[in-house]
């Protein structure tokens, strides 16, 4: 490993925090999905870093599974965004408040 594992973890921590910030501050549903992808990537980076650190290949196998699940999640998420746009003419999440009391 070229750098101390702590530095890799810091990078993934930063990416995760940026993803959280994106989900919380943005109203555009597509950008929110992108922020979720950022968080998943941060988790993947952790898996890879620990796989190298502990010399265990299963971390990389898990990372591949995560990528597959992320692909399915994006497909369904974007389909939901499309349905939302068709019904509400908006992709801003604060325009969808039917369940709000």
């Amino acid at each position: 490993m070229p750098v101390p594992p702590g530095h890799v973890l810091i990078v993934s921590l930063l990416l995760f925090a940026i993803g959280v910030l994106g989900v919380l501050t943005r109203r555009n549903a597509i950008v929110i999905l992108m922020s979720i992808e950022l968080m998943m990537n941060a988790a993947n980076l952790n898996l890879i870093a620990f796989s190298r650190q502990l010399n265990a290949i299963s971390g990389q196998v898990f990372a591949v599974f995560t990528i597959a699940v992320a692909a399915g999640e994006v497909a369904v998420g974007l389909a939901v965004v499309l349905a939302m746009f068709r019904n509400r003419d908006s992709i801003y999440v604060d325009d969808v408040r039917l369940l709000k009391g």
Partner: protein
Amino acid sequence: MSVAAIAFYLLAAFAVGAAVMVIRSASPIHSAIWLVMTFLSMAGLYLLLEAEFVAAVQVLVYAGGIMVLFLFVIMLVNLNDVSERRIRLHTALSGGLALALAALILRVYGRGRLETATGASSLRVGGNLEAVGQSMFKNALLPFEIVSVLLLVAMIGAIVLARQPRT
């Protein structure tokens, strides 16, 4: 500092910077382009961490497939106004929350002491792909099959959700 370490820090800085641009850009198209940059530099990080197969999958699936999906939907939805409402108090609150979460994770990291792994990695017997394949089809065969069913369900679900409703 070795060349690999310098490359790591450069790629990491670029990944984080591009991620900031993803959530800062007003236009979703710009966000998507910056997201590709993040994904590609993270593929570079995976390469430096000796996970060649995951790096290849990252480029193929994320930078290839997922980004095309994002761009398609952005073009389909085609909102021309970039006047996204942002509430100042909300932004400050979210920033505080994200910072608090980061501090929490950092504190958990601080609990453990990790030595830098040195020496040859045993993950590379006959190339990384072979090791991943061996582990995936020996230890994780059932999850592998379940993921394939999950992808099928996601595909059908996406078609059902996005289909033009019959009039």
